[in-house]
């Protein structure tokens, strides 16, 4: 049953999905109480620049505020439990906040190595610390295989530091195929010392690879992913908050963002932990909470990264065992539009996302630009 527009809606989380939900709820006419509860001390802010322009001084924190319409923000506040049956959330101080509608948008827990002297980049305060450290570090070690690791290595090079990047070979290509080869090539041409290792253990101020190479640097950065934190989720949630095609978990409860998973027709669970998904799913969850007939949310996956001056966009789910067709440009010059069955990528190639998605969906493409 849809939540009445004058009811009280509680949003748990302070990231992009939470902010997009709050804005969308007001946008579509929710005029009741709207409470955002976040354990972070800051109001929601934009994250993509944190690992890019923010690190090299191109963006100020004041320009990153996302806004939450006129929601009441309870920052630095932890939810310890959700009482789904009696419709209330319990805070750390045991007080209860009853709700008519609930949006769970608490994100994932970023992995932070236990070793001292190792930084991660997940929040504004992390980014501020890392940006300061970059100014004085002559050497930087980045460990990680995803887009974030390349972005951090890129920022370190821009800051003029001697930069080492440790990747697990095949980790990125397992998801994005040829992109791993392109990004490693870019990193090496930018002067990054690339170390390929099957595993890496952090020790104070450095890391040791499974192959026995000891690496040290003035600044050590770990970009080793995040994990679902069961925390306040229902007891049957093991990999994430399972939502249906309208972001619904149960009556009066929707969820959005990195913590959610959906079930594919083949029975497998799928997570889409991207910036774009967090925002669009947050808005879709808001619509579903107020309207039982809201349209289904089934976006095509889309990811974007920028490192070493190269922008890479990927739409759809490129198969990893099929070489892409070069639709335009050339890979050698790192300017190419690629297409696979079910996926498409733009490497240093300007194309609106809607057209990239159309290409990935194998719709008649209009590439006459």
């Amino acid at each position, binding site marked *: 049953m849809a939540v009445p527009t004058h009811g009280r809606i509680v949003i748990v989380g302070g990231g*992009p999905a939470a*902010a*997009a939900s709050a*804005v*969308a709820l*007001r*946008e579509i006419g929710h005029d009741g109480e709207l409470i955002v509860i976040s354990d972070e001390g800051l109001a929601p*802010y*934009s994250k*993509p*620049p944190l690992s890019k*322009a923010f690190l090299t001084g191109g*963006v100020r924190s004041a*320009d*990153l*505020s*996302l*806004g*939450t*319409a*006129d929601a009441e923000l309870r920052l630095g506040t932890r939810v310890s439990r959700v009482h789904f049956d009696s419709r209330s959330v319990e805070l750390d101080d045991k007080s209860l906040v009853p709700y008519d509608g609930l949006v769970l948008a608490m994100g994932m827990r970023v992995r932070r190595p236990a070793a001292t002297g190792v930084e991660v980049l997940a929040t504004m305060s992390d980014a501020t610390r890392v940006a300061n450290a970059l100014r004085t570090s002559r050497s930087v070690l980045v460990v990680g295989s995803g887009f974030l690791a390349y972005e951090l290595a890129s920022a370190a090079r821009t800051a003029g530091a001697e930069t080492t990047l440790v990747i697990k070979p095949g980790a990125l290509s397992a998801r994005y195929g040829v992109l791993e080869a392109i990004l490693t090539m870019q990193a090496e041409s930018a002067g990054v010392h690339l170390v390929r290792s099957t595993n890496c253990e952090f020790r104070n101020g450095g890391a040791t690879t499974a192959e026995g190479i000891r690496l040290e640097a003035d600044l050590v950065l770990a970009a080793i992913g995040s994990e679902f934190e069961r925390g306040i989720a229902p007891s049957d949630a093991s990999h994430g908050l399972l939502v249906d095609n309208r972001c619904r978990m149960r009556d009066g409860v929707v969820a959005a963002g990195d913590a959610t998973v959906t079930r594919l027709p083949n029975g497998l669970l799928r997570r889409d932990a991207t*910036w*774009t998904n967090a*925002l*669009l799913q947050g*808005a879709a969850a808001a619509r579903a909470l107020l309207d039982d007939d809201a349209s289904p949310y089934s976006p095509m996956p889309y990811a*974007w990264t920028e490192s070493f001056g190269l*922008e890479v*966009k990927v739409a759809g789910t490129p198969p990893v065992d099929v070489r892409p067709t070069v639709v335009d440009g050339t890979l050698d010059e790192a300017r190419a539009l690629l297409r696979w069955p079910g996926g498409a990528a733009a490497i240093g190639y*300007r*194309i*609106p*996302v*809607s*057209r990239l998605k159309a290409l990935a969906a194998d719709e008649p493409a209009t590439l006459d*630009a």
Partner: protein
Amino acid sequence: MRIEVIMERCEGHGICAELAPDAYSLDDEGYVVFAHDGGEVPPSAQAAAAAGARACPVAALLVREA
């Protein structure tokens, strides 16, 4: 409140139009256009317009508080 767009930066992500359909839409190519002339945003759409601008992954939209 006014919104400024830096067209060279727009990559057509479309997040702005999704979050604030009363302030932004996409042209036939898929790049952002203002729903109102000159980026002037009516009071009712300002919260969403600001959120849509700041959610832009490539910072193509700038919020100017009048």
